[in-house]
C-alpha cells in the first residue's frame, strides 16, 4: 500500500517484470555458485588431505590445523626468507590451505640454517607463533623409523657416495664446510663404516655437539669465560636421535637410530636417508610434547 501523498510508481510492464524475474534467478544462481565453490575448500580440510608438515612455530594442535589456517594470511613472507627454500605454499587442491606454507621434508627439509627462525620472524600474523626462540623449541612433528628393515644401519651396512644421488636438488648446512652457506647434498659425498646420516645430520644433534665444543673451549680459557650464560634452549636440552647398537645374535655389528624426546620434526633425517623410500619419516600428527617426553 502506497501513501496517497506519494506519486504512484510507474506500472511495471510484463516484459520488464519477466526481465526482473530472470535477473533475480540469475543472480541467485550466481551467488549460490560462488559461495558453493568457496565452500568446496572444506573438502580437503575435512578429509585431512590438507594436513602437512608446517614450518616451525605453526600454531596447530596435532592434526588440528584449524587455528593455523585461520591465522595465516597467505602472503608467503616465510617462503621468501627461508635460506634453504624449504617452504612451499599450498595450492587450491588444499582447499582452505591454499597459500598456506608447508614443508615437503623428503625434497627439502628445514635444517634451521637460519638459526634465528626467520620464517617465524617474518610471519605478520603470528600464524607462526613468536613464542619460540630456538630450533629446540619447535614442535613440527616427530620422526619415526618407519621401515627398520630398509635402514642401512639396522642391516649393519655403511654408506659411501652422495646421500640422495647426483640429481638430488636439496641443500643442507654442513657446519664443517660453511656454517653460513648451505650446499647441495649432491656435492657432499660420505664414506661411512656404518650409516648414521640421520643422526649425523640432525640439526638438534649438531647443535648439542657445538654447544659441547663451545663449553670445552671456554673451560680451557679459564673461569672468566664460563660467565657467558646461555639463554633458553639455545642449546637443546634433550637429544633428538641417537644411534644404538642392537643385538641380532649373528655377530654382525648392527645399529638402530632411535628417536628421542628432543626431536622437533624438522625432517632432515627424512631428507638425508639414502634408501628409497626413506626408512625414517616425520609424522605430522605427533610431537615431542604429545609423545609424553
Amino acid at each position, binding site marked *: 500500500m502506497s501513501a496517497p501523498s506519494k506519486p504512484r510508481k510507474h506500472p511495471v510492464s510484463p516484459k520488464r517484470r519477466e526481465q526482473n524475474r530472470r535477473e533475480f534467478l540469475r543472480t541467485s544462481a550466481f*551467488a549460490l555458485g560462488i559461495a558453493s565453490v*568457496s565452500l568446496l575448500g572444506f573438502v580437503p580440510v575435512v578429509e585431512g588431505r590438507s594436513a602437512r608438515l608446517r614450518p616451525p612455530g605453526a600454531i596447530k594442535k596435532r592434526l588440528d590445523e584449524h587455528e593455523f589456517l*585461520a591465522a595465516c*594470511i597467505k*602472503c*608467503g613472507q616465510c617462503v621468501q626468507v627461508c635460506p634453504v627454500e624449504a617452504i*612451499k605454499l599450498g595450492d*587450491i587442491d588444499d582447499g582452505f590451505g591454499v597459500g598456506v606454507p608447508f614443508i615437503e621434508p623428503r625434497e627439502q627439509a628445514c635444517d634451521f640454517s637460519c638459526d634465528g627462525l626467520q620464517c617465524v620472524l617474518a610471519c*605478520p600474523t603470528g600464524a607462526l607463533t613468536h613464542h619460540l626462540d630456538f630450533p629446540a623449541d619447535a614442535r613440527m612433528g616427530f620422526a619415526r623409523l618407519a621401515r627398520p628393515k630398509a635402514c642401512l644401519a639396522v642391516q649393519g651396512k655403511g654408506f659411501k657416495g652422495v646421500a640422495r644421488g647426483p640429481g638430488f636438488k636439496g641443500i643442507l648446512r654442513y657446519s664443517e664446510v660453511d656454517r653460513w652457506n648451505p650446499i647441495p647434498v649432491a656435492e657432499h659425498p660420505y664414506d661411512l663404516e656404518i650409516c648414521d646420516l640421520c643422526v649425523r645430520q640432525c640439526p638438534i644433534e649438531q647443535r648439542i655437539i657445538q654447544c659441547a665444543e663451545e663449553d670445552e673451549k671456554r673451560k680451557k680459557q679459564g673461569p672468566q669465560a664460563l660467565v657467558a650464560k646461555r639463554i633458553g634452549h639455545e642449546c637443546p636440552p634433550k637429544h633428538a636421535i641417537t644411534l644404538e647398537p642392537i643385538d641380532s645374535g649373528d655377530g654382525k655389528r648392527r645399529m638402530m637410530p632411535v628417536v628421542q624426546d628432543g626431536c622437533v620434526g624438522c625432517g632432515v633425517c627424512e631428507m638425508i636417508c639414502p634408501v628409497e623410500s626413506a626408512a625414517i619419516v616425520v609424522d605430522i600428527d605427533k610431537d615431542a610434547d604429545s609423545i609424553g617426553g
Partner: protein
Amino acid sequence: MRRSYIVESLRQLFGWKPTRPTKDEQPERLKQIYQSKRGKLSKADLEAAHIEHKRPFGNKWQIRRWATLIFINLLFVISYHFDVQLVEGALTASRVVGFHMADLNSALQVTLAYKHVVLNLVIGTTTVFVLWLLLGGRTFCSWVCPYHLVAEWAEYLHLWLVKKKIVKNHVFNRKVRGIFWLIFGLLAFATGYTVFETISPTGILSRALIYGPGLALIWIGFLLLFEIFYSRRAWCRYACPIGVTYGVVGLLSPVRVKYNAEACHHEGDCRKVCLVPHVLDVTIRGAAFDVEQDIVADCTRCGMCVDVCPTSSLTYEIKGLGKFL
C-alpha cells in the same frame, strides 16, 4: 532528494540505484545548460567532437594505470627473485622496506576467522588504510589488483564477441556484491577459515606471479571465461568483496573523478567504458544535481571515462587541492 556524498556512495556501493534529482532540486544554471543543449547536437557535430578529441595518447590514463599496475606487481616478483627485499610478501600482506602492509580484506578475513587482534595486522592495515584513503579507495582495484588487468583484457574480447553478436551480456543485480561481502565475512567468522581467500583471484594471481603458477589458476581461467562468454566483468562488478572494502575506504578520499555538465553532450561514451557505469548515471541528461558533481566512491578512479570523454567533462580532482591536469 539529494543525499550527501558518503550516503550516496554507500547506497551505490551496496547496489542501490543512483538518486535522481527532481526539477526543483536543480539550480537554474544547470537547467539552462540542459535546455541549451536540447536537439543541438547533430551526428556530424558529434563526429567532429570525437575527431577533435582524438589525441596521439587518447588513452593516457589507461597507459599510466597499466604501467603502474604492472610495475607494482613486478616489484613483488623482483624483490623475491633477486632478493632486493623492497616489497616482501604478496598482495595479501607484505613488508615494504620493512614496514608492514596488509590488504584490508585479507586482514578482515583473518581477524574474523582467527578471532584475535594481531598487532602486526593492525599496523599493516592502518598503513594501507591511510594509503588508500589518500589515493582513492577503489584505486586499489584498477591500479594494483592483477586480476583487474587480466579481466580488462578479457573484457575487450567479450565486447568484440558482443559486437559480432556471438555472445550476449547478462547482468546481475548489483546488490549481490554487498551480500557476498556479508556472506564471506559471516563465513570467516562462523567456520573459522578464511573462506574467501580460497577463491580470491587477487590473492591467487599475486601468489602465482611471485611464487609460480599452480592449479589455482584454473579458477582464474574459469572466471575469465565466464566474463568473456556470459557476463561482462562479472567478478569485479558483482562479486568481489575486496572492492566493497576499498570502496568504503574511498568514501572519505579526496581523490575523485569530477563531472562538469557544462560541455557534456550526454551521449554516454563514458558509461560504455566504465567498470561501474552506475556511478556515471549522473552524466545522463537531467540526472545531475549540480553543474559540478563528484563521482561516488564505487568509482575505481581508473580514468577510462577521463580518457574517453570528448569534452573533458570528466576530470580527476583532489578535493581541497584544486584541479590537477
